[in-house]
């Protein structure tokens, strides 16, 4: 097969786009225009920006759910437009609503569902399912019925289903937006552990979830308007305002009190910092 050598050489975890443009049928404005992007294998990249900015469209082009009007796109070394199935084997996508992805009566069947369609041998399948369930911290849940689980647990089952397919790339499309605080922490804890092992693109409205990302892309009006380190993004008030981004309440509170925000991540951290500030003031009187 010609081209096979190049394919092996192509980094399986990388993403590369040039001048990517897409307009939804009937829409007046393009949803993406001229997007260029390079993501290296193992990078953790956040994607933020207003609704309609192009975040979800970009993810849908990357796994071949939509096909670009023009431009070049390579995911895991392949073109998702011409080889959507090859690409989707290497790219796992986690959606907002954990209810939508769950299909089987028991957790382990659900996690095995994608593998059953790939013709993986039974023994290997078992091993992969076991490992995936362990990787999301749900060992012991194999025989549970998905509808009895909490939102955070359901979303972790969905993540295990993706991991069983051993993708090189994970596309996370607001995976915590429907979860309560505890569920959100559970899911983020699991995705963080995959850092470095998988290439991760994480779309979210919560900047607080991206403080550990390698970099954050800000998308607005169908373009990538900034590509910055998370620490720089949260301290750039103009960039935040231009793109209708808001800091998490705790960071806003810290900033409003004149305390540096990037290291104060929990209520306890912030309370301690405020306590110190009060004591210092009392001491100088």
């Amino acid at each position, binding site marked *: 097969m010609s081209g096979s050598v190049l394919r092996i050489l192509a980094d399986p975890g990388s993403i590369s786009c040039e001048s990517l443009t897409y307009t939804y049928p009937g829409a007046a404005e393009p949803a993406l225009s001229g997007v260029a992007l390079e993501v290296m294998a193992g990078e953790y990249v956040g994607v933020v920006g207003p609704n309609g900015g192009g975040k979800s469209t970009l993810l849908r082009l990357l796994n071949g759910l939509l096909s670009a009007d023009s431009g070049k796109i390579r995911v895991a070394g392949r073109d998702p437009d011409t080889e959507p199935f090859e690409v989707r084997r290497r790219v796992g996508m986690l959606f907002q609503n954990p209810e939508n992805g769950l299909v089987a009566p028991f957790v382990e069947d659900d996690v095995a569902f994608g593998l059953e369609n790939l013709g993986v041998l039974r023994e290997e399948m078992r091993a992969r399912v076991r490992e995936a369930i362990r990787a999301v911290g749900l060992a012991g849940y194999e025989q549970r019925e998905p509808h009895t689980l909490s939102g955070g647990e359901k979303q972790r089952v969905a993540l295990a289903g993706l991991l069983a397919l051993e993708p090189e790339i994970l596309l996370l499309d607001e995976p915590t937006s429907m979860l309560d605080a505890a569920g959100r922490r559970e899911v983020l804890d699991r995705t963080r552990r995959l850092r470095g092992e998988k290439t991760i693109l994480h779309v979210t409205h919560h900047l607080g979830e991206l403080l550990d990302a390698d970099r954050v892309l800000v998308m607005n009006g169908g373009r990538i308007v900034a590509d910055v380190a998370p620490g720089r993004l949260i301290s750039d008030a103009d960039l935040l305002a231009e793109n209708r981004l808001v800091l998490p309440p705790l960071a806003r509170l810290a900033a409003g009190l004149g305390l540096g925000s990037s290291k104060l991540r929990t209520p306890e951290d912030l309370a301690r910092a405020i*306590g110190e500030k009060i004591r210092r003031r009392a001491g100088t009187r």
Partner: protein
Amino acid sequence: MRLELRDIRHVYSPGTPFELEALRGVSLAAEPGEVLGIVGGTGSGKSTLIQHMNLLLEPASGNVLVDGVDAATLKKSELRRKVGLVFQFPEAALFAPTVAEDVAFAPRRLSLDEDEIEDRVRDSLSLVRAEHLRERSPFALSGGEQRRVAIAGVLAMGPEVLVLDEPASGLDPAAREDLLRLIRTLKQTGASVVLVSHDTDEVAEVADRICVLERGEVRAIGTPSKVLYENLEFAPATVQTVAALGESDQSIGRPVRFEETLRTLRSLVEG
């Protein structure tokens, strides 16, 4: 209008091995002109509860009262006009070629004349600040715009109680602000709003009272400061911060909304 739920019990699949008691005697009321926030984890019974508010589900025991009248004796169509339910991701039900036609769909079934329908479409779109979208296709709108148009469709029925299930889920921060503003506006018109959300920041910002549901029972109900400070796992991180400070300084008080919290802490830090 006052909507009261009195000792509501709900059992799914009764008499089968899958029997599940989702509500175990829930009593609460939404007073006219108030925003009642309902919080609780997965499986607490939030979604089951709101479906009792217009009798989409019928309780195994207990009553729903509308201004003191048993809702079971009212015509279903009348009850559902008075109590508007907006489910999660309501934009999934948008279907008409234009926004105006979509919003007009439900009032048209009330056999109103065309002028009245037009008034309602205009008023509801204006409440959600979407007048400018009326001739657009709902499918060409952004997620936040679609959400507002879908809510306008329920407002056009003229509800006196509006029940919103996770209305800001998936919206960007600016669209979420718009939605909180809409809730405050609705309240000013005298309607009651029941806001179900997993986002405690959101509930703390607009609720007049908060109800915490847990395993099908009311664990707490009352003013936001009382309920949140006494059930900290359901409180926003900002409230948790104040509570952590308050352990050593009782004089801080119990601020709940963001601006109020910031003001309180500022005066503490700056003296």
